């Protein structure tokens, strides 16, 4: 443990793309990024785990469908059990849904095209490891880049997700209005991210790791990673 900095493990699956970027962003925000390898049964004693974006195993089957069987996912499951913070970004979100650690699923965008764009998302709850200390209603600018980011769930599941307040982020206009025009991929109820009931597991399609350094983009990811780091610090 270096100088009491929270340690965030970033898992590299074959085909992960934003793993190095996530490690960099954790360090930029004052944490210590710890590279983790999909084939290991070892989380190296980290305080939080981040599943990064990319196309694990090429995503030739359903996105995330193979990665959920990676050896390290057993450790991640136990880690979740223990209440530790786990965040999935983009492909990581898809993996968490496939693993049953988050509700819902992600299918091809409404336009059937890949989309790379900075979008606005509204924070819906402060009860998650990514949004602690944030005020519901706050609007953050963060890039999305995905071909399969349309959040869907059965009507029963969707009712439960909404009823239990599991929606963590929604796509919105710059003023926070949630409407169809700003729903970048056609997600149900504009959902951009969800949490589990306990709040320690969060998945989202936007990329907070690409929204920390003002030199290369918006900064809406800063408060999210700050929240994750403070959660992690509490465990370390």
């Amino acid at each position, binding site marked *: 443990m270096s100088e009491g900095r929270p340690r965030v493990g970033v898992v590299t699956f074959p085909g992960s793309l934003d793993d190095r970027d996530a490690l*960099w962003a954790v360090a930029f925000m004052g944490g210590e990024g710890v590279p983790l390898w999909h084939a290991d049964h070892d989380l190296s004693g980290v305080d939080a785990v981040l599943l990064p974006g990319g*196309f694990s195993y*090429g995503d030739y089957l359903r996105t995330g469908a193979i990665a959920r069987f990676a050896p390290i996912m057993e450790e991640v499951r136990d880690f979740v059990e223990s209440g530790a913070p786990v965040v999935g970004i983009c492909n990581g979100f898809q993996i968490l849904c496939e693993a049953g650690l988050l509700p819902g699923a992600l299918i091809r965008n409404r336009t059937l095209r890949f*989309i790379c764009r900075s979008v606005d998302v509204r924070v819906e709850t402060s009860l998650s490891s990514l949004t602690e200390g944030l005020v519901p209603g706050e609007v953050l600018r963060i890039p999305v880049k995905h071909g399969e980011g349309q959040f869907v769930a059965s009507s029963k599941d969707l009712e439960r997700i909404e009823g239990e307040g599991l929606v963590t982020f929604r796509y919105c206009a710059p003023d926070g209005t949630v409407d169809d025009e700003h729903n970048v991929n056609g997600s149900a109820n504009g959902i951009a991210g969800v949490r589990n009931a306990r709040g320690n597991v969060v998945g989202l399609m936007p990329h907070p790791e690409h929204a920390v350094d003002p030199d290369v983009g918006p900064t809406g990811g800063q408060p999210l990673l700050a929240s994750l780091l403070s959660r992690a610090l509490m465990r370390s």
Partner: protein
Amino acid sequence: MGEEPLHRALGLTDDELEAIRATLGRDPNPNELAMYGAMWSEHCSYKSSKIHLRRLPTQGPHVLVGPGQDAGVVDVGDGLAVAFKMESHSHPSAIEPYQGAATGIGGIVRDIVAMGARPIASLDPLMFGPLTEERNRWLLEGVVAGIGGYGNCIGVPTVGGEVKFAEPHSTNPAINVMCVGIAPVGRLITADRQVHEGSLMVLIGASTGRDGIGGVSVLASRTIEEDAAESRPSVQIGDPFAEKLAIEACMELVERDLLEGLQDLGGAGLTCAVSESTARARLGVELNLDAVPLREPNLEVFEILTSESQERMLAIVRPELLDDVREVCTRWGLASAVVGKMVPGGKLTVERGGKVVAEVPARSLADEGPVYERTIEPPRGFAEILEDDPTFATVTADPREAFFAVLSSPNIASKRFVWEQYDYVVQGGTVVGPSADAAILRLDGTLKAIALSTDGKGRFGHLDPYLGAAHAVAEAARNVAVMGAEPLAITNCMNFGNPERPEVMWQFAESIQGMADACRAFGTPVTGGNVSFYNESGGSAIWPTPVIGMLGLIDDYRLLARPGFPEPRLLVYLLGETFAELGGSEFADVVLGRISGRPPALDLEREGALHGALIEAARGDLVASAHDCSDGGLAVALAESAMAGGTGFALALPGDVPWYVTLFAESASRAVVSVSPDRAGDLEALASAHRVPFSRIGETGGPRMVFDTLFETTVEEARAAYEEAIPKLLSG
């Protein structure tokens, strides 16, 4: 009807067969013929272009690796080197747009990896026929989806390029791709690296199948005619996941210094990689085809030798490091197989089932292909096209209507539909993405950034190939300079018709001269590139279009200049001068319906002076915005600055020049800059010091764009026209 002799079926002429006989001292066997057919194809041997390419400047203080290797390499200081190269994948894309474009990305990325560099950016210059035709819409959608599908999946950001439209591209889209990589200088894998006798050739990555056989000779070195769809089996199929694993494995092999050589398997497959590596090492090789992992058991010898199956790399490894190399490959889930051994002599010996099935001097394949000095002749009717100059036409158009016609012309309009399908964010280095004059990527661990721009001037080239090429270099250099970067070097892709036609060869020779002169003037040597001939059907060729890929360098990326007007009450200046030059302009095409006349003149010295002024202005944080003024003229440059910054302007027009010249002439060597009033004096002094003419033409502010008393519109109205033009056309 007599059967065609084998050598001709493989694309070799009778004379070429004789040359092979002379080299071998005997008749070549069919396997050897297949190898020569691939390596001596136009695509691999540059036999028509070689004598012209020699005229290009290739040396410079920054150049570490010039033409002839997988990619050019430039020293950018701080111990870092940038590798970059451009290629075309036009023929495959015309037949199967998604896979054609996708495998084009894969190939150029592996070229960068082969230099030991990590790919950090791609740019895609694309040229299609008009979107009013359904097939062209299908091609555009397929190509863009293929670029995104492959590029997004390998984690290399696609940060720029361009999309142009012209009728001659209806049958022959031009699909070019540039890739850029970075490496510590000491880690580069160049031809200087010594390869030892006894070292092993290790084939890494995908297994070898029947896909892409004859890619270089069937597709790339002939014209596409009606039976094109039958060539579909010659188009390769891409697997970006395998490519991503190959990139990571190769990067680890390079970082751990486990390799003596590394080359990708692209055009002409194993034959090309093995013969080039062997010739470069000045050694021979014993190649064992039994060791090549195959997708199906019954591949013929010539199929294994020329298959263009994707996602394969060839490494040269010392025997004592083999276990380490194979361990890295296994960890990344990649197959690796020892397929050959370096031996003294210079022979490439191919064995299968214990028998020698081919034996030829490696150099004769790689370096001693035929060289042709083809006949050159200017096309008929060339003078008439030049004389029919729209500059002297009677213009009755309404200025406001003309403005919107030009702004919403697909050549000018927003390409958001295209670049939003590309991940331009991954790797975290993109300071400026696809929407500006140049893409800016910072170099990790420094304040430096590279600036990248690709530019082709097909319409100018059609009217005057010399000027078209020179303008392409000038605009590419201007695009990096306007953001504050010093132009360092170029790569290129030469898109032309059938070189066996004297008019095409004339266009080629003129273009090379134009490029050479411009590159000399700006001190930007040519570090490599690609020649794409045979872009024609039924005797009708594409316009001669050299596409330039420019590499520039900024010392401190925080000082870069951006195109948007950032705030109101700035003074707007035009640097450079506007002349009565409407030939080849967007205005002449879409408003007057004429693609004729002389393209704008280009004074290379004035152009260079402008670059110097722009770079100094950015470094001194003098300008609030800076934007190239070229396609569509001043009106478009101003509108783009207004839209990018969300701030309007009021323009004062000079009284003694026709409005359509001021607004729409595409005179060279110009830029639109804005400056705060208290720095205006400094800007004028700087421009004067560089001998750059300037004029104060307006002021920023408000939601409107006011073109003197001619007409006015709003930024939002312009934005709607600009953004919606291409999506509207695509929806049919």
